[in-house]
């Protein structure tokens, strides 16, 4: 039964992968755009060359990229190469492949998003639980209005404000990039600190906003959970307050939070893309921004596909882990 559940979830994951690939293939072709021609025209205009050889170049490139074959053959070979994670060459960085460029950017984004999402989720959940708990210190009530306000604003807007306050007004932290320009990447402590200090501002914008959201969600769930009969029963049994708080209230209230986490990953990532752009952080978001600027369709498609698949995988893992967190749902079909 449990295997059936995992198999079904895996099927959905494969469906997402296929849909993402097909979307990537179909949308640009529906619009009848010729990415190679657009790009070549653009560079011709920028460089001011004579456009005499342009048509021949377009033909040659189209042949090389396989864009002159019938649509269904292009689709099949597209799916094939996508399955091999081969997204062709980047048009704007020609000798480099899209896969290389993405592989360079992914660790940055994974590190930033992994750490910040876990921090925001952990701190927010704990804070939310305490906010609903009658035994919490009274000053915590004052945290509510700022949390609400933070939750309502986009990541990158806070990023802009923070970059002015902490990098321009009080120059405490570097404002741009992933490490100081010209520094040689090495495993030394100095370089490590350089990287961390560059990541602090983007991370702070994501953590502050995210914490507000998780805290509000958890507080709502705690209030509902604390009204349950089993909590009253635990109190009547004379259990210690911390036990009731952790083992009875938090343990149950955290379950919908985890579902919400799986659902929120996409949104968090969309927000983080913009934060990276604002801070010029060398992750997937900035790479995507450059690809859009340069009109590099292959790179854009490669990034979108990779990100959708990566998030699908993350959601799959969360969904498979979920029955283990909440034994009540393990063998049931979702309602």
């Amino acid at each position, binding site marked *: 039964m449990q295997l059936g559940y995992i198999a079904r979830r895996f099927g*959905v994951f494969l*469906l*997402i992968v296929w*849909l*993402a690939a097909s*979307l*990537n293939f179909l*949308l*640009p072709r*529906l*619009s*009848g*755009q010729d990415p190679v021609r657009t790009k070549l025209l653009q560079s011709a205009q920028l460089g001011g060359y004579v456009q005499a050889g342009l048509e021949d170049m377009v033909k040659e490139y189209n042949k090389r990229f396989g864009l002159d074959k019938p649509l269904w053959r292009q689709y099949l070979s597209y799916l094939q190469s996508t399955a091999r994670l081969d997204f062709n060459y980047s048009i704007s960085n020609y000798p480099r492949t899209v896969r290389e460029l993405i592989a360079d950017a992914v660790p940055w984004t994974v590190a930033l998003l992994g750490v910040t999402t876990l921090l925001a989720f952990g701190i927010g959940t704990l804070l939310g639980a305490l906010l609903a708990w009658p035994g919490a210190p009274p000053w915590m009530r004052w945290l509510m209005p700022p949390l*609400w*306000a933070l*939750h*309502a*604003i*986009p990541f*990158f*807007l806070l990023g*802009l*404000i923070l*970059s*002015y306050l902490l*990098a*321009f007004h009080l120059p405490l932290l570097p*404002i*741009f990039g992933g490490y100081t320009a010209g520094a040689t990447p090495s495993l030394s402590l100095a370089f490590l600190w350089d990287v961390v200090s560059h990541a602090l501002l983007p991370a702070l914008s994501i953590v502050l906003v995210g914490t507000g959201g998780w805290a509000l969600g958890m507080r*709502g769930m705690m*209030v509902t959970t604390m009204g349950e009969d089993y909590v009253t029963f635990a109190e009547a049994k004379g259990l210690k307050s911390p036990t009731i708080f952790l083992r009875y209230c938090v343990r149950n209230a955290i379950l919908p939070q985890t579902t919400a986490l*799986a*659902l929120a*990953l*996409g*949104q968090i*990532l*969309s927000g983080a*893309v*913009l934060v990276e*752009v*604002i801070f010029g952080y060398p992750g997937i978001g900035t790479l*995507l*921004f450059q690809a*859009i*600027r340069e*009109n590099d*369709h292959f790179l*854009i*498609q490669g*990034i*979108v596909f990779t*990100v*959708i698949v990566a*998030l*699908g995988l993350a*959601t799959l893992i969360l969904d498979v882990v979920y029955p283990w967190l909440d034994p009540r749902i393990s063998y049931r079909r979702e309602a």
Partner: protein
Amino acid sequence: MSPDGVQRVTGPLPPAPSRKGRGSAGWRYLRRNRSLAVGIALLSLLALFIIIGNLTVDTELARPLSVRALQPPSWEHPFGTDRQGRDLLAAMVAGTPLTLKIGFVAGFLGVGIGTVLAFIAGYYRGVTDTVIRGIADIGLTVPGLLVLIIIAVSVRGGLTVNQMAIVVASLAWLYPTRTIRAQVLTLRERGYIEVARLNGMSGPEIILREMMPNLLPYLAATLVNAVSAAILASIGLEVLGLGPLESPTLGMTLYWINFNAAILNGWWWWWVAPIVIILIVFLGLFFLTVGLDEIANPRLRQQA
């Protein structure tokens, strides 16, 4: 709250005896529902800014090269001017309604499509329900901004404000569909729906005359939420450079701020105005949603 613990959807205001009493009841209700009051106040402030601005400011100055570039705020240009020679006050007065328009068009389309799909799925169930729910569930786990990017770069030439609204609307129905469907599922098991069905009312009649009126406060909250999400998505696309390059929308102003590194260069007046307006938009819409949620779901009142 009802004894069976099922949430009841009720009308917003207690019945008022007279026209005169109704206004004061509204005020009293706003004093109880603080979030609603804050939301309405923030959005009214914004509306006032747009209306007064349009009456007093020449929005032609929002075009590039119409004033001296990069002037800090002065009597002549209260919000200063940007690097391309736009008067920023004029840009805000002209651009804020454009951004709101994108949000409202996409939000209305999203909630409209979402409501229809949700009723079809939630009321009639069956295979259609499985398909609609499946699409919405899968669609929601995918990062929306990235799909919008693929759509936006596929449109030939730059997007106009109207095309922007349509592009954003293409994903804006997913969340409304999912949440409204859940509401329809609980509504459909209620006693009065059962009675209506036994009385021989047809499906569309039950949906329109029995279910819709009860869902209205909930739909309103969903709509405000959708508008907010649509504005966020449109600003996201614009910051990435996929917006209407010629229009002074709030997101495009942010794009130029980032493009010209206004923060690093110390041109603070350039970004203060758009950021404050965007903050007001999002905070206003957020508090409005919370307030409307409280009307739609009276159980929340006890928690506040």
